[in-house]
Every structure is written in structure tokens, then in C-alpha cells.
């Protein structure tokens, strides 16, 4: 189930190690996660749920959803999708809630490591990278933190080339854009990047912002600075349907992670729910990985993503069923079938239109919503704006939220594109440096140029919708 050949990606694997699943030895590679190693070995059920004992497997693959909790070396509730394999590791399925070991040495207490800078950027995707690059060019001392083990955010899973203008990396593959931006970041002495580092909270201590973070699930770090740029991207939406928790029902992002980051084949036959850009791109990526895509179903009467993405998969034989939805997943312990039906004008399934697809994976690509937990927790004013994908932080034209010194950029400010995320990151990075009094006034021109680029990008039918949303999210001037 491991991918070796790929038309775009190269997979490098670490040293071979042995892990034990329920006592049975399995081959794994250093650098991969427990859940992905198990997946490659064909193991789909990772635990049984607490109340109903329902089988559960991987779901988000990025440590957010709790669907992959297992007992590792006797310790329960380990998020196996973000825990690296180690030679000799003992891994057991978790049955509901689990017990802590009864004996343990009390830990020794240490003060957290403190990192002091001007600006803390949270999130190393396109927005965060551009924010860090530009804030440092504008003279600020910057730290960039990201929870993944490589920079680039979702870009690293994208095999397709991006749209926009060439100066905004149009025509360059996502993976490649990530590499270019990372190189750019590394050039600056003013920026330090902390990978595998998750921000877990923002506390305000007077004028100072404290971003509390955890590195490699092991080390507590206090990042202290005067401004924070939150560029934490997006979360996938889920939808309720029968057995939507059966192993084999995955978020589109999880499949991309499995397939394009870890080189593990997600399954043999896939049904995709959602014909927005994520679903369409996923279909194409699956085909590139040698997986059959049985169909894409879409509740709307039309393809929601770019037509060209749809045409790419149609000509490779993937049907797109608009005005259709998924009714249920079927299977014992894992997905064996998906049942879909046509929808009437009121979004109700039409009896008699049910179709069954023999699939082992159901991919949900039903939309993204901004990841705003950090902003919300920090006390930024939050508003629901449908056009931006859900709840977003209210901000001004320089991307500063209602909490002074906290900025936002990219998908966490509203679901859009990598291109606009980069432009917003640039604005937020420069704006933070300006408002801290670090950058000189000449940098305002750069902000204005980025704003013009954004306006141009948003002038089409897709962008106009977003622009409407942004108006609603802007702070009304005093």
C-alpha cells in the first residue's frame, strides 16, 4: 500500500524500524507517523468509541479530531496520526476511555524556554511564510512557528500548479512554491523558524503577547513579542450522514496527507463528496497516485470549483453527479459501499434515485472553514461571514484584529486561495512592522501594491463573492 512512483512527487523514506501492533511486528519507516504506518499495513480500525463502541479510524490526519487515539507503550490517548514511530514501539487499539498507568515518577519542574522577538507568526503556510519574510525585510525580528515538520502548510500536499499571475507563482506547483518560499525565509537572518511547534494559547501580559507553544509534544516554549500574526489556515467541514464515522470516511486533507506527504495509498476505489476545488483537485491527485475515483457527488446543481479542474478529471473518466448527496456509508468495521441519491429542489433525496458505489474510501470535500481558535481564545472579535467560509476575526484593512497587535492572514482570515493568502501575509507582515514602529513609512507603498494585487485577483466572479464577505469582516471606522 506504499506509493513508490508518482508523476510529480518523490518519496524519501527513513530507516526501517519494527513496531508492534497488538503484539504483531510490522515494518515502518522512521519519519512516518504511527497511524500512517498502520495504514500502510492495511490496519483501518484504530480504536472503539467510548459510548457506543463504534470502530474508528484515521480521520483528519493532522492531530485535531481525536479519531486516531491509541494506547502506545501503555499510555492512552496518543494521537497516532501525529506521533512518529519509534523502533520497538508497542501499539494497541484503545477501547473507549482508557486508564493512565498507575505508577509514574513525578516529573521535575522546569521553566519554559523563552524566545523574545518583535513579531510572532503562527503558521508556516503561504500566508505565514510571506508574513514572516516581509516583516523581517521591513526590519523586524521574527519567529515563525508551525506544527508540521516542514514549512509550506497545505502547499506541500499540492501537486497542481497554482493560478494567478506569474509574479505570484502562477504556473508553479504547490510543492514547489513551498520550497521557494522556504528558501526565501532561510535567507533572512532576522527570522527563525520553529517546526513541529504548536501554538496552544495567547496570553496578554501588559503590552507583551505571550504565545505559549509546545515543540515536538515535549517542550514548552514561551514566545514573547509585541505582535502576533495568526496564519493558521483552515479546517475541513464535516457533514452528518449515516455511518459518517466508519473507518474509510476521511477528510480530503487526510487523504492528501496520507498519499502526498507519506506516500501511502489511501485505498483502491474512492467516492468523493463535494465538487469544489478541494474535491476536484483531490480526484486528480488520487488518479495521479493510481487510485480509481468512482465518482464525485455534489449537492449543488453545478461544479463549485474551477471548471478546468472538473474537466481534468472528467476526461479521465470520473463522473460528476451534481444535485446528488451521500446518504450513507455501509460496511462492517470499514467502508465497503457508499449509497448516494439525487436531490430535489428543496435538497431532499428523491426516493428511488439511490445508487450504490463499491468503494473502500469516502472522501469528504464539503468545504473549509477558517481556523480561528487562537484568535477567538485571544479575545479577538469574531463574526460569522458566510462568504468567507464561517466565523472569522473582524479586522482592518491592514489585517489587524480588534485586539491591538494581533493580525490575521490567509485562510484563517477567510477561505480563499494560496495566492491571496500570500498577499494578505505580505500585508500583515509589513503592517505589523509598521505599527510597531519598526518599518519606515516607505513600506506603506508595498502594502498598497499588495492591496491592488488583491483587488485585481478578486475582480472576477469568484473573487467578488469573497470581496463582499471581506467588507462584512472589516472594522467599521470610529
Amino acid at each position, binding site marked *: 500500500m506504499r506509493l513508490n512512483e508518482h508523476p510529480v512527487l518523490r518519496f524519501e523514506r527513513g530507516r526501517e524500524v519494527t513496531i508492534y501492533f497488538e503484539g504483531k511486528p510490522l515494518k515502518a519507516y522512521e519519519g512516518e507517523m504511527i497511524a500512517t504506518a498502520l495504514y500502510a499495513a492495511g490496519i483501518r480500525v484504530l480504536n472503539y*468509541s*467510548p*459510548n*457506543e463502541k*463504534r470502530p*474508528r479510524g484515521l*480521520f*483528519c490526519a493532522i*492531530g*485535531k*479530531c*481525536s*479519531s486516531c*487515539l491509541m494506547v502506545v507503550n501503555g499510555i492512552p*490517548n496518543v*494521537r497516532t496520526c501525529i506521533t512518529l514511530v519509534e523502533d520497538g514501539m508497542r501499539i494497541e487499539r484503545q477501547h473507549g476511555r482508557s486508564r493512565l498507568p498507575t505508577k509514574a515518577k513525578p*516529573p*521535575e*519542574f*522546569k*521553566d*519554559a524556554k523563552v524566545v523574545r522577538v518583535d513579531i510572532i507568526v503562527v503558521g508556516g503556510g503561504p500566508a505565514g511564510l510571506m508574513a514572516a519574510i516581509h516583516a523581517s525585510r521591513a526590519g523586524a525580528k521574527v519567529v515563525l512557528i508551525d506544527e508540521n515538520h516542514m514549512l509550506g502548510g497545505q502547499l506541500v500536499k499540492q501537486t497542481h500548479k497554482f493560478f494567478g499571475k506569474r509574479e505570484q507563482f502562477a504556473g508553479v506547483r504547490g510543492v514547489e512554491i513551498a520550497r521557494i518560499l522556504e528558501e526565501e525565509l532561510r535567507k533572512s537572518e532576522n527570522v527563525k523558524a520553529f517546526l513541529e511547534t*504548536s*501554538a*496552544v*494559547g495567547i*496570553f496578554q501580559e501588559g503590552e507583551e503577547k505571550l504565545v*505559549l507553544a*509546545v515543540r515536538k*509534544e*515535549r*517542550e*514548552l516554549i514561551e514566545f514573547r513579542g509585541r505582535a502576533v500574526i495568526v496564519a493558521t489556515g483552515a*479546517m475541513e*467541514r*464535516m*457533514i*452528518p*450522514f*449515516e*455511518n*459518517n*464515522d*466508519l473507518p474509510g470516511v476521511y477528510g480530503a486533507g487526510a487523504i492528501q496527507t496520507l498519499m502526498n506527504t507519506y506516500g501511502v495509498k489511501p485505498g483502491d476505489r474512492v467516492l468523493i463528496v463535494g465538487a469544489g476545488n478541494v474535491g476536484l483537485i483531490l480526484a486528480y491527485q488520487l488518479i495521479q497516485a493510481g487510485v480509481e475515483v468512482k465518482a464525485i457527488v455534489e449537492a449543488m446543481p453545478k461544479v463549485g470549483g474551477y471548471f478546468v479542474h472538473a474537466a481534468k478529471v472528467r476526461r479521465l473518466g470520473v463522473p460528476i453527479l451534481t444535485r446528488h448527496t451521500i446518504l*450513507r*456509508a*455501509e460496511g462492517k468495521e470499514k467502508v465497503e459501499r457508499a449509497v448516494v441519491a439525487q436531490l430535489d429542489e428543496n435538497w431532499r433525496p428523491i426516493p428511488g434515485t439511490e445508487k450504490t458505489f463499491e468503494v473502500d474510501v469516502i472522501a469528504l470535500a464539503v468545504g473549509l*472553514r477558517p481556523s*480561528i*481558535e*487562537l484568535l*477567538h*481564545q485571544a479575545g479577538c472579535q*469574531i*463574526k*460569522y461571514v*458566510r462568504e468567507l467560509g*464561517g*466565523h472569522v476575526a473582524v479586522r482592518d484593512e491592514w489585517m489587524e484584529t480588534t485586539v491591538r497587535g494581533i493580525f490575521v492572514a490567509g485562510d484563517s482570515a477567510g477561505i480563499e486561495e494560496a495566492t491571496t493568502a500570500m498577499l494578505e501575509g505580505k500585508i500583515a507582515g509589513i503592517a505589523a512592522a509598521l505599527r510597531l514602529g519598526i518599518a519606515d513609512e516607505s513600506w506603506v507603498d508595498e502594502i498598497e501594491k499588495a492591496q491592488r494585487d488583491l483587488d485585481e485577483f478578486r475582480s472576477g466572479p469568484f473573487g467578488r463573492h469573497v470581496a463582499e464577505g471581506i467588507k462584512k469582516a472589516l472594522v467599521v471606522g470610529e
Partner: protein
Amino acid sequence: MTGKKIVCRCNDVTVEDVERLIDSGVTDIEEIKRLLRVGMGPCQGRTCIPIVISILARKTGKRPEEIPLPKARVPIRPVRVEVIVGGADE
């Protein structure tokens, strides 16, 4: 075969559970959250809360804009106790 429509994986809460509670007159999302424990499990509400908001909007005729988002709390992702006290390394 009929299966459950799961809203919250952490506590096995279904669409029907949420609807039943709303029908019983509990329509404040903070109360729904606490009575069904949606958003109080290890995933901290990332998956379930948007679904609860949409069910609540559908059942009560409110717009999603009118339903406040339950507060996000520190830590925004689970952290081992030993990491917070500073002794995970030995």
C-alpha cells in the same frame, strides 16, 4: 441497514440527540454543548460545533450569524501535563 449520523465523535453524539434536545426546549448553544458534551471532548469542538450550529439554525429558524460560537479555551490543542510543568524530557 440504518446507521447513526455522528455529530461528535468524541462522545458519540448523533444528529437525533441534538434535535431531541432542541425539541425539548434547550436552544442555547452553550447549554446544548454542556448537556450533550459536544465540543467538550479531546477534539475541543472542531468538528462538531459547526454542525450543531447548522442544526440549531435549521430547527430554530435563526441565522448562523445569530448563534454565538462557544468560547475557545486554552490550550487550543491538547497538551500533556508533563510538558506544561516542564518535565517531559527526562
